[in-house]
């Protein structure tokens, strides 16, 4: 039955530095539709966390509302989690991050949660440069409410019921680039070879990392007229560069070669190795990335891969000069310094 997954595992399953198999990073068995792209995304996150040997309790999963936002239940059941109000995940993530910057914040959102009801929140969390991984499972429809067109649906497409998309679509990657995100990428749930290194790099990046993941809705948006179906995406996907993630511990043997390959050192010392496929590709130029995205879209192509990376960006805590110790590790005296300190603060405003 679909809600029972055997606890038996492959006897020769690889273990990571912590001695854990990827099965130790799983969550509950998914209740999403069979074939949902979000399940592949879940599997990519599990693989990335396992390969990075992250301790599950060092991760906080946060989400809003929607099929996408149910997904955190399906990975990392030993991590912290908060399933918040529709479109309000960025506020909760900001609060949590302020209180404890030692955790790794993995946020799951969808096209409705981020591009419609939570669009304002999305814009501001990008501006704030919060140190988090913000993933949008983008399928172009509202799957949980039976397939109405989402704000990310391409203008001119029809949904399964035959409704035409009359308005311009919101491209969340373009928005993130414009608003100053320091890591922006797009991928496809059906291409784990591309997706897993991107998630690993986003988790190793310090600053706001955004990944828009095209994740087909197999029930409401996998029909012939859709531009988010498995077949359409398989046929129209393209990339400017192949990005590979090289973890810190791996000795870099192949030196940085010719002009079409580039190594970017991330905050924790790991490397994002980029193999250019397109001459115009430039991971350091946000405006060029926006142009590339728009040009490919006009040509009927879906551009994926790492669009922009600024490895030395400051995050919210640095900008605000906040205390680096998590609040739960501060003593009562430090958290509540008493009347004398309060008077001092008050006096400073007089």
């Amino acid at each position, binding site marked *: 039955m679909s809600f029972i997954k055997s606890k038996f595992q*492959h006897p020769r399953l690889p273990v990571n530095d912590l001695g854990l198999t990827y099965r130790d990073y799983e969550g509950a068995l998914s209740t999403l539709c069979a074939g949902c792209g979000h399940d592949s995304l879940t599997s990519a996150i599990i693989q990335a966390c396992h390969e990075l040997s992250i301790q599950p309790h060092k991760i906080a999963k946060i989400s809003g509302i929607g099929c996408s936002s149910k997904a955190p239940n399906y990975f990392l059941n030993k991590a912290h989690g908060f399933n918040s109000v529709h479109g309000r995940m960025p506020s909760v993530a900001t609060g949590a991050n302020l209180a404890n910057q030692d955790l790794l914040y993995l946020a799951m959102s969808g096209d409705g949660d981020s591009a419609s009801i939570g669009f304002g929140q999305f814009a501001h969390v990008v501006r704030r440069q919060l140190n988090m991984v913000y993933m949008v499972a983008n399928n172009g429809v509202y799957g949980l409410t039976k397939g109405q067109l989402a704000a990310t649906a391409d203008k001119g497409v029809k949904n399964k019921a035959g409704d035409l998309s009359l308005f311009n679509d919101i491209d969340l990657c373009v928005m993130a680039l414009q608003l100053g995100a320091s890591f922006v990428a797009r991928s496809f749930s059906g291409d784990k070879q591309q997706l897993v290194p991107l998630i690993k790099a986003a988790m190793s990046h310090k600053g706001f990392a955004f990944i828009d993941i095209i994740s087909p809705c197999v029930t409401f948006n996998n029909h012939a007229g859709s531009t988010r179906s498995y077949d359409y995406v398989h046929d129209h996907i393209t990339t400017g560069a192949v990005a590979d993630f090289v973890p810190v511990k791996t000795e870099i043997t192949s030196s940085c070669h010719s002009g079409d390959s580039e190594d970017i050192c991330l905050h924790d010392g790991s490397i994002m190795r980029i193999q250019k496929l397109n001459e115009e590709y430039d991971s350091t130029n946000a405006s060029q990335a926006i142009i590339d995205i728009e040009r490919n879209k006009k040509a009927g192509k879906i551009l994926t891969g790492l669009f922009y990376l600024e490895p030395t960006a400051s995050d919210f805590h640095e900008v605000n000069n906040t205390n680096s110790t998590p609040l739960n590790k501060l003593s009562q005296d430090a958290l509540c310094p008493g009347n004398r300190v309060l008077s001092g603060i008050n006096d400073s405003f007089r």
Partner: protein
Amino acid sequence: MKKTDTSNYQHFLKVVDCQQACPAHTPVPEYIRLIAEKRYTEAYLINWESNVFPGVLGRVCDRPCEPACRRGRVEETPVAICRLKRVAADNKEDISSFLPKIPHKKNGKRIALIGAGPASMTVARDLLPLGYEVIMFERDAKAGGMMRSQIPAFRLPETVLDEELNYIINMGLECHFGEEITSLDKLLQAHFDAIFVGTGAPSGRWLKIPGHDQLDAKSTHPQIDTGINWLAKVSFEHLEYDDENPAPKKVVVLGGGNTAMDCCRTAKRLGAEEVTVLVRSSFDAMKASPWEKEDAAAEGITIMPNYNPLEYKIENGKLVAVLFEQVASVYDKVGNRSLKATGETLLVECDQVLVAVGQDTAFDWIERDIGIKFNQWDSPKVNKLSLQSTLPSVFFGGDAAFGPKNIISGVANGHQAAISIDLFCQHADPIEDRSDTSFNLVSQKMGIHEWSYQSGIDHQERNLVPHISWDEAVKHLTTEVELGFDEKLALEEASRCLNCDVHTVFTESTCIECSACEDVCPMDCINFVEEETDDTEMVKQFRVSEVNNEQSLLVSAPLKTGHIMVKDEDVCLHCGLCAERCPTGAWDMKKLMINNINATIK
């Protein structure tokens, strides 16, 4: 990688490890499912069709199926297949109405069987329903062959054996008990249409070490005997011990096979106080089944590995001890064993020695000028598939054809020979005209999350078979030691079966490459990989790249993106999650139905 050929049953049969490992290809998961539904009679009949002696084999089979069981690869221990077979036999109702009807009008062909062991009796069982007249010659007073003479009643009660032999005898088998065939040439004069030789390996091997010639094996209470001879004497009650001739008190058994185990346990029951088994090999390399060794040890028998017998010590014409040298097994690079003496010796006092170091076929009754060719080991030359000898009307099977093996191999040979004899008698060629079987794969889908088999995996460990107390066991020669599973244990054990005969069947044309199956599979069996010319490179793309080469891969044709699906069958649980997660039904769980299982024995 080459696309797997799914147009015949070979790939699918290989995936059902237990069925493939059974020489008779008994459909194991099918009968275990029936046991789980308490349909014991049907479970028995499925067995009876394939292995002819379910009650016997449910107790004393060599169980080649169990080491093969997939469960042993995903956790510690296989399903207790053998003892579940016994459950079907113990709990069945009267099966007589389900047995094949024997035609009154015979087809005019007469077949002679020499010997009434498992192979011969299987030939009779297969040919009688087809209208053949079958005439059996057996030197002993009862049918059963080694099942009766070499397996003690405390492991296999006579009633169980008689019941299953009688199903066949009652089909109209003409039995000539106590008639030993001493000349095949003479039998050939009797104009049978075909003769099947199933005389087993009746000749126990001796150890011709110093002292052997001074001991009389032919006396009424011999101090020395071969294991199989002695077991037969016990079985047919030819040995009588009383105050004048007390049973030996100290017994040495030489050898490490199942015969040695049966000898030592029988000796104990006859009244021996000290029984020691000494074997040249290491304990692990002993040929006896692990459970036989365990049971012998539990009954207080000492097993001493690494001892090679040197001499029977005789005083005043009586055996008093056996002298051994200690040896160590040394293996060379290719795994060949040689024994190296350590220099230590050991003297074991005894008043009887039972030699169970092997047994051979005996063909002194077959004239060498009647057209049957023998090979360098004095075994008849037979075709492995048809079992036909160089004299076309004579067929061999079981131990007589291939040396000592086991009951289930004899049964499998019986089926092969019956097919060949039938073809031969219809003037067809037993090899050229041999037909294969048709097969079918039937979807088990009943609803959205419903399958017609238990797809959820039971994680329980193997259940142990209850037995009478070991103290009590050694007091009785014919009381069965094992009690068998009761219904509760049987149902628990049955639910451990992984239903490997319900196959994951993949259809390329409907796959949308969403990877849902790959992601959900608990055992990481499913891989979507880029095609490469080098297979070993392709395997590196697998989720678990360390593959078990003894197991198959299910390889698809290229999919829309050019990738191919490769499923490693090794540790698949047949849980059906791939099929449940597939949005397009590209995966389905289908049960393998082989129409003529006997034809798959090759």
